[in-house]
């Protein structure tokens, strides 16, 4: 198993933050809302953490809260994806001529 120790994690945090900043520096205004929606979808990865949290839950209270975590995380991922797709669909039909 790969340990995510304190310092290694600090480097990962730093590099990921730089990557996040750099990849969207040239975004046009018209894409602001779809990009917000798309990044909202990406943090739906929280569902993976929720699955692990529910997986290790032992008491009924922990199971109940873990269940809610997976429920909300899955809704974040699925809803985020569908909404982003629908936004970009509209974008395509109004902005592009070739189908």
């Amino acid at each position: 198993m790969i340990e995510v120790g304190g310092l290694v994690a600090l480097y990962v945090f730093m590099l990921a933050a730089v990557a996040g900043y750099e990849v969207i520096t040239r975004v046009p205004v018209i894409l602001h809302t779809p990009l917000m929606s798309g990044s909202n979808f990406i943090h739906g990865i929280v569902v993976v953490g929720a699955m692990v949290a529910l997986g290790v839950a032992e008491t009924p209270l922990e199971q109940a809260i873990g269940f809610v975590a997976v429920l909300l995380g899955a809704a974040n991922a699925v809803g985020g994806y569908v909404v982003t797709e629908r936004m970009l669909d509209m974008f395509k039909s109004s902005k592009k001529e070739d189908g």
Partner: protein
Amino acid sequence: MSVVVQLSYFVASVLFIFGLKAMSSPVTARKGVMWAGVGMVVATVATFAHPSVGMENLSLILIAIVLGGAFAWYTALKVQMTEMPQMVAVYNGLGGGSAGAIAAVSLLQGARADEGSVAAAMGSDAAVLGLLGAVIGSVAFSGSMIAWAKLDDRLKKSTLVENHQWWNVALAAATLLLAIWVFHTGSGFPILLFFIAALALGIFITVPIGGADMPVVISLFNALTGLAVGFKGYVLGNLALIIAGTVVGAAGMLLTVLMAKAMNRSLMNILFSGFGAAPAAAES
């Protein structure tokens, strides 16, 4: 953890970063969403092989994924195009709530672990980042729900109490003190109070903000949820969560500033104009 699971998380992280990159150009935006979608499926499927996801709660996990997914699928397809911003707020809020709930499970386990305190059971670093993620996730959850209610015209009030700014300061201070208590505690009661304070803080911060400024605020909460997810990744030792969450946190923060700039407003002006310190938001 098996190599296959780790490699799947790696692939997912790469797909997320390049997907986001592709999403910031009109020509490649659709491809970008698809890449990120593939990454999400890869990571989720791989997690079923994660050693922590044993047989015991497997059926609960499956039921929760199906119910949550079906609800979101249905509402996302049904919503009108004009109502998209508030739906983004809702799904973002749910993600923040999920991060908060994960934190609650970790903190409760820490309190139950018979080590004297949450900090001793989890390790001080994980406890601090867990608490930080819990606050941010909870604020993003309740704040996003208020943003949704405002945009959906279900909530028209812009003040809950007299002297709103002092209430915000008091709630922030209370949340901080409760977080310190949770850090040192071995019982569940302060954890409950801590989450109530954090959720109330999100409500009190968001209510004074005008409806016209809400898209910027939703973008801010989106960035905050990303950050909370990144912190959860540290607590759970999951690199995919750290990378995806932090990338969204940074990208979302930049996007928030860009959106505020496109409206000819500064972020500070949007956030604090409702507090009475700066001129009130122009909503005519």
